[in-house]
């Protein structure tokens, strides 16, 4: 049992260190006559196991402010919009685009409207440069979803014209009436499809449409292009429907995202695309990282000077804490931006505090004349209440700010979420390291002596 435990511990340690390795660090040295020359890189997986392919690179993902990314400019077609509605349409288009990019899984883009003379544009800055074309396609989709029915009931005309030309009469049911769209898979064929869940009014309308069209086709159009034209089998009054069609999984996902984010009030097309640098200069970032390291070293020295051996143990446990958190950031992956780093530093501060709380308690017990071993036991036991309450409140705050259930009335993306995510992960990890690891280390070191 003990052997297995040790083995597990060692393999987890190796895994964490492997994930934490620096990127592209060249190693050059001579070992006897052999020349050693290679690059250190963090773990990257590319496994094909039982038909399951896993591809993952454990690299640090930096946000726009730290690394830069792609700058896309879209021009809005304003001819169809009334001049007085233009500003509203533009800013709502901005919000929708921001939502789409975020739903697509790109963290913390920056979206802004530009006005130049009588040209209206929307600029989208996306961190990193992967999958830009996909993103462009998704952003530019107008996504006007419309449900139509047959324009004529004349059976003769009906059979002569192609199906998609027959179902041209708008029913008044549109993408606005959909509460939520999700990608599901057909029970029988296993093909991806998009399930729709209508809002109360939408469900009502849909029920009426299906009622008067039993046995007849109903069209589902996206931007005037037919997605699917099913024939109504029966009245559907529960407010649910599916769009089938020859979708790939990605297409179905894209469609669900564009329905969920709402229709763009005006159509846009790409006019400019270039790479941009980070808004915080590289020199700035390097300086700040350096300063952060100096600060951290001072904290460690302070702990060692003030608390002696216990402080040294806490320092080791803090370093382990840093390595574990960083490995988690790379695994998820968390896109690191300045607010994100602030959240992480705050959690480091709280981890230090957990240690100080424990040590002060131990000192207190020692002053009362207890033996060292008993003092440690009591100190941990008593400090845990305070640590638990303080950390649970912080986790509550992080949880609400992060908005994991994606509620509409809370921030669904952006810097607040980045901050909450790193803070939450940091505090949860520090609960673990501060209590479990520090205690283990103390046991190990003091048993020997």
């Amino acid at each position, binding site marked *: 049992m003990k052997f297995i435990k040790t083995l597990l511990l060692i393999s987890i340690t190796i895994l964490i260190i492997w994930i934490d390795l620096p990127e592209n660090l060249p190693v050059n040295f001579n070992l006897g006559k052999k020349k050693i020359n290679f690059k250190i890189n963090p773990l990257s997986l590319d496994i094909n196991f039982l038909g399951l392919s896993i591809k993952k690179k454990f690299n640090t993902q930096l946000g726009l402010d730290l690394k830069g990314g792609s700058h896309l400019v879209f021009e809005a077609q304003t001819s169809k919009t009334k001049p007085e509605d233009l500003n509203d349409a533009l800013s709502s288009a901005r919000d929708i685009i921001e939502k789409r990019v975020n739903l697509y899984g790109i963290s913390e883009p920056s979206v802004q409207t*530009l006005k130049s003379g009588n040209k209206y544009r929307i600029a989208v800055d996306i961190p990193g440069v992967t999958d830009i074309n996909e993103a462009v396609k998704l952003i530019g989709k107008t996504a006007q979803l419309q449900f139509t029915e047959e324009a004529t009931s004349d059976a003769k005309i009906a059979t002569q014209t192609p199906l998609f030309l027959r179902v041209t009469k708008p029913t008044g049911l549109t993408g606005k009436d959909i509460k939520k769209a999700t990608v599901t898979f057909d029970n029988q064929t296993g093909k991806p499809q998009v399930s729709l869940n209508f809002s109360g009014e939408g469900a009502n309308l849909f029920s009426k449409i299906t009622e008067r069209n039993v046995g007849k086709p109903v069209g589902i159009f996206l931007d005037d292009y037919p997605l699917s034209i099913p024939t109504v089998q029966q009245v559907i009054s529960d407010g649910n429907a599916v769009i089938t069609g020859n979708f790939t999984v990605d297409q179905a996902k894209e469609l669900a995202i564009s329905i969920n984010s709402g229709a763009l009030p005006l159509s846009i097309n790409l006019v400019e695309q270039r790479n941009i640098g980070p808004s915080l200069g590289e020199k700035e970032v390097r300086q700040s990282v350096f300063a952060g390291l100096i600060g951290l070293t001072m904290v460690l020295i302070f702990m060692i000077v003030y608390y002696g051996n216990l402080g040294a143990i806490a320092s080791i446990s803090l370093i382990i804490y840093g390595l574990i958190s960083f490995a988690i950031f790379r695994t998820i992956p968390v896109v690191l931006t300045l607010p994100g780093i602030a959240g992480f530093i*705050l959690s480091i501060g709280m981890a230090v505090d957990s240690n100080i709380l424990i040590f*002060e308690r131990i000192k207190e017990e020692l002053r009362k004349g207890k033996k060292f071993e008993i003092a440690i036991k009591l100190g941990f036991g008593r400090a845990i209440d305070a640590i638990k309450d303080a950390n649970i409140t*912080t986790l509550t705050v992080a949880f*609400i700010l992060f908005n994991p259930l994606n509620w509409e009335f809370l921030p669904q993306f952006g810097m607040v979420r980045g901050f909450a995510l790193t803070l939450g992960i940091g505090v949860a990890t520090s609960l673990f390291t501060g209590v479990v690891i520090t205690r283990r280390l103390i046991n190990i070191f003091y048993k020997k002596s």
Partner: protein
Amino acid sequence: MVNFTKYRWLYFFISALVIGIGLFSLIKWGYRYSIEFVGGTQLEYQLSREASIQEIRKIFIENGAEIVEILLEGKNLSVRTKAINEKKELGIRTALEKNLSIRIDILRIETVGPTLGKEMVRKTLVAALLATLGILIYMIYAFKGINYAAAAIIANLHDLIVVVGSYSLLSHFFKAEVDTMFVTAVLTTMSFSLHDTIVIFDKIREYRHSGSNEKIEYYANKALTETMVRSINNSMTILFMLLSLTLLGGSTIRFFIITLLIGTITGTYSSPFVATPILVWLEKRKIKG
């Protein structure tokens, strides 16, 4: 044991003074908002010959434009400013042409909208309110009563007002701008302050449950005396971190770090000197009533 609760009028006076100055500045001067909130203007000029960037910058400022970013590559000048209208742009351009005796071709004039929608700001506020409610509920549960929770939240509000108020001073005197980093700093301060307060409250709760039947002041003073070393040590470690970032870190994050510094100080101060006196007061009222 130090009798901390005796000097509550002094704490009250200090807090009132700091908050008063901050609020005065907030009402009188308000804030400067960053380009993320208010948007701005992007200008691109083609100069007829190369010119000194310092002089160009001076002329922009003299004509009342707030420069966010200025880039000069050969004869290509690209400037991002807070929003300026066409008349102002013309004024700047003529001044540049006259003072530097150059000719300018306009490559681009663009009005840039804010990157932070009103929606975003509103939602962040809702989230902050909900978080406060969450804290309230958890603390009522963990400390079995509303007094601890109420005192902690009041101390938290105290820190919020201190940070928000003093940032307005920074904004007025040192041209600090309200941007995303400021919002982050405020959130960080509030989390930290709460954490700090709970550690002290936890001590008070522990002593009260330990059996003896003393007055609330006694427990509060005992808890404050015992946690004082920890509070100071803890804040010291954070101050080390922030001071090294202020002195050595990059200039764009300086105001962010200074705000965090202010937040740490008020967060540490408010736990023993705002939250605890309020708790004592609330608990005493309960006994009387």
